[in-house]
């Protein structure tokens, strides 16, 4: 497969790892923000190729993991209603809410459907005028354009039975929040390549400068990740803190202007709560007043109920890179993918699930 195979060979990975070993003179702690990169690191065993001084910490870039519990509870409440067809991407269905998950609601008779694009949900609303179709609009900058398009298209079609339950988050404010924490141990970042294909990387320039931390826009194949780490370590070794683009085959500085225009027309930036981390200012997207008719929270008057996270779960610390998954006392005994205590164990991109799947027994 072009653009994939050449970034996945043993020779290229070993060469990149050897080059990294040659420039590394001391210990460095680097966070990969994106859950897709965490998954690739563990699936391919990229961490096993790194020089001993380099520690990778796994960031909060998994949309399933950071969606707050109260939003999951709202989704479950909506999905239980007989008039509602609740639509979502597949991996949200297994996330436990306070009492159950969406798959259990489906098993109990709720009309819960997996869709591959939010536009499929719009089409469902068009075909079922007597039902209320709700789409669970979660994700980072990557899914925002398609979700914005769904609201835009629903308005164009004049649909009154379509709405979005929005829980959208943005990466740069999260990096800012992590770096601003007094206990921050992270010295450099790999930023998520796909997020930057949409939004570009201009927002990262002031963050890197302000905190003296290099940020490297990085792709998702083993060679991409190794090159991203190499560029990051090279900056750290040379005392630089710049934004560099490893993923230039997909990312332009200004991102995708058409997608950005659409996102800004439909959404506005506001505060957003991140599961395990708390509220981060300016870190979320909310539907603008002109699209209020498509906002499920306003339409169904959903109020946030009381939620209680497991007291044993340290997913918040894991998401901020303060702890590794296996440092949690509940890891792989009380907390497993079948009985997750926190969302990082649920999603295939969650750091705890990735550790459970690939590293439970150390090789």
């Amino acid at each position, binding site marked *: *497969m072009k653009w*994939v195979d050449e970034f*996945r*060979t*043993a020779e290229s*990975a*070993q060469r990149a790892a050897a080059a990294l070993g040659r420039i590394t003179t001391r210990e460095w702690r680097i966070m990969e923000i994106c859950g*897709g990169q965490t998954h690739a690191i*563990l*699936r*391919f*065993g*990229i*961490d*096993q*190729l790194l020089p001993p001084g380099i520690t990778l910490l796994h960031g909060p870039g998994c*949309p*399933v993991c950071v969606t707050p519990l109260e939003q999951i509870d709202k989704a479950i409440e909506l999905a239980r209603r007989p008039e509602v067809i609740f639509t979502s*991407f*597949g*991996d*949200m*269905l*297994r996330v436990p809410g306070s009492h159950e998950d969406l*798959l*259990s609601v*489906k*098993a*109990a008779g709720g009309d819960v459907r*997996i869709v*591959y694009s939010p536009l499929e949900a719009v089409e469902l609303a068009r075909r079922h005028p007597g039902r209320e179709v709700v789409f669970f609009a*979660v*994700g*980072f900058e*990557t*899914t925002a354009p398609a979700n914005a398009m769904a609201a835009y298209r629903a308005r164009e079609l004049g649909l009154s039975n379509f709405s979005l339950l929005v829980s959208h988050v943005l990466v740069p404010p999260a990096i800012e929040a992590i770096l601003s924490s007094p206990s921050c141990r992270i010295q450099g970042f790999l930023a998520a390549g*796909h997020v930057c294909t949409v939004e570009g990387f201009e927002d990262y320039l002031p963050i890197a400068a302000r905190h003296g931390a290099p940020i490297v826009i990085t792709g998702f194949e*083993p060679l991409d990740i190794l090159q991203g780490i190499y560029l990051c370590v090279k900056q750290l070794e040379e005392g630089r803190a710049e934004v560099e683009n490893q993923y230039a085959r997909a990312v332009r500085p200004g991102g995708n202007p058409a997608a950005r225009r659409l996102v800004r027309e439909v959404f506005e930036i506001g505060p957003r709560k991140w599961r395990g981390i708390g509220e981060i200012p300016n870190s979320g997207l909310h539907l603008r007043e002109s699209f209020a008719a498509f906002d499920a929270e306003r339409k169904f008057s959903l109020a946030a109920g009381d939620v209680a996270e497991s007291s044993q779960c340290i997913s918040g610390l894991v998401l901020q890179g303060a702890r590794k998954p296996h440092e949690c006392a509940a890891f792989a005994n009380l907390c497993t*993918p*079948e*009985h997750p205590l926190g969302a990082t164990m649920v*999603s*295939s*991109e969650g750091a705890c699930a990735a550790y*459970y*799947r*690939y*590293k*439970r*027994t150390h*090789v």
Partner: protein
Amino acid sequence: MSDYSLSCPLPISDYPRVLMAHGGGGRLMHDLIHKMFAAAFGGQSETDSAVLPYAGQRLAFTTDSFVVKPLFFPGGDIGSLAVHGTVNDLAMSGATPRALSAGYILEEGLPMETLWRVVHSMAQAARQAGVSIVTGDTKVVERGKCDGLYINTAGVGFFEHSQDVTPAAIQPGDVILLSGDVGRHGMAIMASREGLEFESAIESDSAPVAAPVLELFRRGVEVHCLRDLTRGGIASALVELAVSSGREFSVDETRIAVRGDVRAACEILGFDPLYVANEGRFIAFVPETQSACALDILRSFEACSGAAVIGRAQEGGGRVLVRSAIGATRILDLLSGEQLPRIC
């Protein structure tokens, strides 16, 4: 009364209802089978068929149900799939398939033309696989109670050799052979069910594999264990066999063939092809000294033309180690249920 308990052996509080994942070939299904069915019915068959003593011989007995949607998909349909699935289950115990049953559950309103196409395809597949469909049953349920039609089968077969084909027979040093590329059936169904269009349609690998398997026995290959790679894919089959044999398997991921179109579809959906279902693929454990001969035999059959060595069994552990494309090693595990398409 003392050996009878009304309390359910599965933790009902965790799963008060059956979920789709209970049929997904992963950990939840494994628990359901072992903690509920096997606990209630007794018996702990670790193979796809039960092997029963019969008139001084051994008889292989299996059953399977087919609920695939859509009924017709690139590379097959529910009728041919029912024959291939049942015949392959018998072959995986080392038996020669003899006779099948066909139980049809039909939905009110199903076009007779559709039913005929399925029945015709089933008959043709049985002829090709050299088995007879000798008994059956028909039930009709109200409209909306099933997706057009479901098929249940049973199959019986006899043994033309005296080898025991079980996980316990796997020996340290055994070579693991894979009969061809993986992931085609699951992705063909996914693409046609969900209306995902790729440049060319991915065709299911659905095929009977009894002939190549039986040829191994006929030619004197010492086959220690066989497993077809249906739900849960090659990963789940390897993990289950490692656990039940108590051996450790090491597998080279780059030797597991995945066609480009299947890999691309998996990349788009965030699936791991190692966990995607197959309907015409199996793994075989044979002594290293016989692996070249076994490969030659398998490759002479069209359904196994892509057969290859993917790894070996060694002492102890009950786990599967995979060498990744970049040369690092990781543990292979069961998923809890089916893979779900991910967000980004």
